[in-house]
C-alpha cells in the first residue's frame, strides 16, 4: 500500500485529471501522523482557489437521509446517470461507526452498483468517527480536493435533523432523501429542527398513491416554512428507474442559481473553524476571544485561501494571544 505520497505530485496528478490519484489522496488526508498532516496541508494549499485561479470545477453534492430510505440504490442510479452523460463521479460514503470500540463496519459500497472496471467512478467509505451523524474529519478536505479532478463529488451521510447541517457546510447542493410515509422529516421540517434542503428526493415513487401523498405533504410543509424554492423530486429505482434525469436536472439548476464562490468561501471558513476547534477545543476558542472573534478573523483572510492555511492562521493567532498573556 502506498501511503502518503509527495503532496506536490498528487496535486499535479489531480490537476492533470488523473482520477487514479484518488485512493492515495484519501489515504493521505486520513492519516494523522505529523508528516502526513504537513503533506495534506501542502496538498490543500497547492489546490487552493488562489493557486487554481478559480473554484474547483467539480460539483459537490451532499446526499443525506434516514437509514433504509434507499439512498444507496439512489446513488447507484445517480452515478449511472452521470456516467451516461460522460461525467466522472466520486462518492464519499460516511458510515455511522461503533463508538464503543472505535471500529466500524463499512457496508455501503456493496449497495452502490457500479462497474468495478470503470475508472471514472471512485467510491470510498469512511467511518464518521466521534462525530455522530456528521462528517469524517477527512471528508471535507477530500471533497474539496477531489472536486479539482472529478466532475461530480457526492458525499453520502446517514441521519436526519443533524447530518444535513454539516453536509450543508461543505456541499454546493444538499439533497435530503425520504421515503413515503416518513412523518419524522415532515415534523422536523415544520419545527425548524431541520434546515431546509436544496432538493428533497422522495424514493419508492412506484408506490403510487402513497408516494403522491408524500409529495403533497412535503410541498405543504415546505410552504409552511416559506421554502418555496426547494424542488421535490420523486424517483423509483425499480427497473426501469424513473426520475433520475429530473433529479440531476434539479441538482444542476440549484448549482446554476448559486453564488458558488460565496458558498465555497463560507464552507472553507466553517471547515477551518471546525478543524481548529477539533484540535484545540474550547480553550483554543477562548484564546481567540471567542467564536465571533474567530469568525471575524477568518472573514478578514483572503477569499481564495485553502482550509489548511486558514486553520494554521487561527493557530498562530491563538498562540500569539497565549504568549501575550501576563
Amino acid at each position, binding site marked *: *500500500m*502506498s*501511503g*502518503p*505520497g509527495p503532496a506536490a505530485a498528487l496535486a499535479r496528478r489531480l490537476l492533470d485529471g488523473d482520477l487514479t490519484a*484518488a*485512493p492515495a489522496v*484519501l*489515504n493521505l488526508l*486520513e*492519516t*494523522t*501522523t505529523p508528516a*502526513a498532516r504537513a503533506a495534506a496541508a501542502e496538498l490543500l494549499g497547492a489546490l487552493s482557489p488562489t493557486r487554481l485561479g478559480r473554484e474547483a470545477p467539480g460539483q459537490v453534492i451532499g446526499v443525506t437521509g434516514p437509514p*433504509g430510505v434507499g439512498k444507496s440504490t439512489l446513488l447507484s442510479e445517480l452515478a449511472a446517470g452521470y456516467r451516461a452523460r460522460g461525467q466522472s463521479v466520486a462518492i464519499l460514503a460516511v*458510515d455511522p*461507526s*461503533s463508538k*464503543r*470500540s*472505535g*471500529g*466500524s*463496519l*463499512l*457496508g455501503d*459500497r*456493496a*449497495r452502490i*452498483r457500479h462497474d*468495478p*472496471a470503470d475508472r471514472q467512478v*471512485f*467510491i*470510498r*467509505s469512511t*467511518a464518521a468517527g466521534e462525530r455522530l451523524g456528521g462528517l469524517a474529519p477527512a471528508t471535507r478536505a477530500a471533497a474539496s480536493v477531489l472536486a479539482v479532478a472529478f466532475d461530480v463529488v457526492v458525499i453520502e451521510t446517514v441521519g436526519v435533523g443533524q447530518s444535513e447541517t454539516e453536509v450543508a457546510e461543505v456541499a454546493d447542493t444538499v439533497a435530503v432523501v425520504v421515503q413515503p410515509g416518513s412523518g419524522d422529516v415532515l415534523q422536523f421540517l415544520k419545527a425548524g429542527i431541520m434546515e431546509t434542503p436544496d432538493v428533497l428526493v422522495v424514493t419508492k415513487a412506484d408506490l403510487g398513491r402513497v408516494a403522491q401523498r408524500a409529495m403533497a405533504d412535503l410541498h405543504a410543509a415546505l410552504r409552511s416554512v416559506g421554502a418555496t424554492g426547494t424542488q421535490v423530486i420523486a424517483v423509483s429505482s*425499480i*427497473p426501469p428507474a424513473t426520475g433520475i434525469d429530473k433529479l440531476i436536472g434539479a441538482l444542476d439548476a440549484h448549482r446554476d442559481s448559486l453564488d458558488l464562490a460565496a458558498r465555497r468561501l463560507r464552507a472553507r471558513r466553517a471547515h477551518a473553524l471546525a478543524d481548529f476547534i477539533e484540535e484545540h477545543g474550547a480553550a483554543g476558542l477562548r484564546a481567540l476571544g471567542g467564536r465571533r472573534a474567530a469568525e471575524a478573523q477568518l472573514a478578514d483572510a483572503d477569499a481564495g485561501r485553502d482550509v489548511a492555511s486558514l486553520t494554521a492562521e487561527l493557530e498562530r493567532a491563538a498562540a500569539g494571544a497565549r504568549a501575550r498573556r501576563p
Partner: protein
Amino acid sequence: MTDSSDHRLPERERPWVMRTYAGHSDARRSNELYRRNLAKGQTGLSIAFDLPTQTGYDPDHELARGEVGKVGVSVAHRGDMETLVEQIPLDQMNTSMTINATAAWLLSLYIVAAEEQGVAPALLSGTTQNDILKEYLSRGTYAFPPGPSLRLIADMIAYTVVEVPKWNPINICSYHLQEAGATPVQEIAYSMSNAIAVLDAVRERLGDRAADLMGDVFGRISFFVNAGVRFVEEHAKLRAMSAIWEQIGRDRYGVSDAKQLRFRYGVQVNSLGLTEAQPENNVYRITLEALAVTLGRNARARALQLPAWNEALGLPRPWDQQWSLRLQQILAFETDLLEYPDIFEGSVVMDGLVAELKAGAEAEMARVAELGGAVEAVDYMKAALVESHRARWRRIESGELTVVGMNRYESTEPSPLTAGNDGGIMTVDPAVEAERRAALDEWKAGRDAAAVTRALDALAAAANDPNANIMDASIAAARAGVTTGEWSETLRDVFGEYRAPTGVGEAVAVPGEDLSALREEVERVSEQLGRRIKFLVGKPGLDGHSNGAEQIAVRARDVGMDVVYEGIRLTPAQIAASAVQEGVHVIGLSILSGSHAELIPSVLDALAQAGAGDVPVVCGGIIPEADAAALRAAGVAAVYTPKDWDLNQMMRDLIGLVAERHASPV
C-alpha cells in the same frame, strides 16, 4: 388398533424417504452416482446443483469461474437434465431439488426430461426447494429482487397445484436459518413467517380461484428442517412447528381437511455443529440429530438426508455418503423405532418444551408481522440471525458451550480416516469446467437459433405481463434448448438484480466481552500507521455461505478496525477495486464452495494488476491442507479452516500482519 396394543402399532411402519444430497461435475458422472446410490437402497434422489446453475449463470460466465461442477452438478439445458435422469424412471422416483432462484427453470427442464421418457407431469413427485427468503437471510443463491422472486414462486405453486399435483413446489427452509445461527424459537418463527408471506402471495395470485384451491395449496407446502445435537429440544421444536402450522392453516387460510393441515417436512441434519477437529466424532452427532427427527411418530420426518462425517473437511466421497445412508437404514430396519405409536404422548417434559417454544415463536412471529411480514422484515431477521450466531460463537469461545474435540478434550491420536492420499475427501476434476464450456458451445451450435430467440422473447413478454404464468413460457424455452444462463439473463433484464442485506451493520457489541487487550493493540498499531487499521472482508465467487465472513467482520469491528464488508458474490476485479479505492491494510477472503484453488490466485492477480499486490491477503474456508500449502506458496499470508475457531486469535494474527507489512508507512 386394538385395545391390547396401545403401545404397539399393528404393523411396522413404512420408513421415511431416504436420500443423499449428491451431484458433482456433469450430468453424466452424477447420473452414474445416482444409480449407484439407488442400488444401495436409497429411496429418493436429492440433486445438488452447482452454484452457477443455482444462481442462473452458464458455465462460461465470468462469475462461474472456479465454481462449475464444484458443490453440485452443472445443468445448463434440457440435454443435461435428460442425461442426469437417464435410466431412472421418473414416474417412480421422488426427486428433491435444492434449487431456489432458478427453481421455475429447473422444474421446467425436469418436466421436459420426463416428457422425453414418456412420463406425464401429473405423475411426477418430488420437491423444489424454491424458498427465496432464506436465500436472502442465509444461503445467498438468490438472483432477483424479492417482489419478482415471490411472483415466480407463486407462479410455480399456481401451476403445479393443477398440472403437477404430486409435486411439492416449495420447501420452506428452516434448515439454513439454524445454519446461520437461529435459536429454535427463531427457526420456528422465521420459517413460519416466511410460509405466510408465500401463501399470501399465492392467494393473491390465484384471485377468484383461491377459494377452491387454497386447501390444495396449503397441503402442498412442505418444510425443510434442521436438527442440531440438542436432540430433545429439537424434537420439541418439530412438534411446536406442527401445532403452529395447523393453526395457521385453520385460522389464516380456512383449511379444515386434516390431511392438508398436516405439517410435512424433510430434513438435513445440522452441519454447523460438525467439527473439523476429530471429525470421526461427527458420526455420533449425526446419529443423535437423526433421532431428533425420527423418535416421535407425531412429528417424524417424511424424508431424511444426512450429512457425511467429513463435511467440515471438504466434499464427501461416495463412500462417506454411503456411511450416512447406512445409518438411516440401521435406524429404520434394525431398531424397533417404527414399531410404536408416538413415544412422547403425555410426556410432561415434551409438552412443556413444546409450549415454551410455541409461545416464544408466536411472540417473534408477531414482531415480524408488525414489521409488515417476512419480506419487509428481511433486514430485521438477518440482523437477528447474525446476532444469535455471534452469541453462540462467544459461548464456544468462553467454554460455556462444550464442543468435544474442539474446545474441550482436544488431545487426540492421529485419525486413520484422514490419512489416505485423498485426505479423506473428494476433489472435483479441475478439467470439468473446460469440458462444460466446450459442451455448452456445442449445444448452442446445434440448436435452432430462431426458435431460441422466439422462446426468449416469449419469456420476456411473460415476465413483463403480471397476469402471465412464467411456467408456460419456461417450459417452452426448455423445449427450445434455451440455457440456464439465457433464461436467467432474460429475467434479470426484466426484474433487475438484487443484493441482500449483510446483517452486519446492525450487529451491536455483546456486552461483557473482554476485547480490551485487542482493542489496545489495534489502537497502538493504528496510531503507528496514522490511520485506523482498515480490513476488507471479501467473498469471491458464487458461494453464498456468508455466516463465517460475517462473524469475522463483526469481530474485527468490535476490536476497533474499520471493516469493509461487501457481502457475497464478488468478482476478483471487484475485490481488487475495493481494496485499492478503500485503501485497506489487509484483505480476508472466505470461500466455502471448494473453488479456492482457482479463485484466490485470481484475486491475487487482480490485486497485482490494480497496483495493490503488496496488501497482505489471508483466506478462510473449507480448505484441505494440500491446497492450503499451495495457497501459501502463491503468496497468501495465512489460511484458516474450521479448526481455527478462535476469532480473537485470528484478530491477533491480522493485527500482527498489518504491523509487520506496514512497518514503515511510506
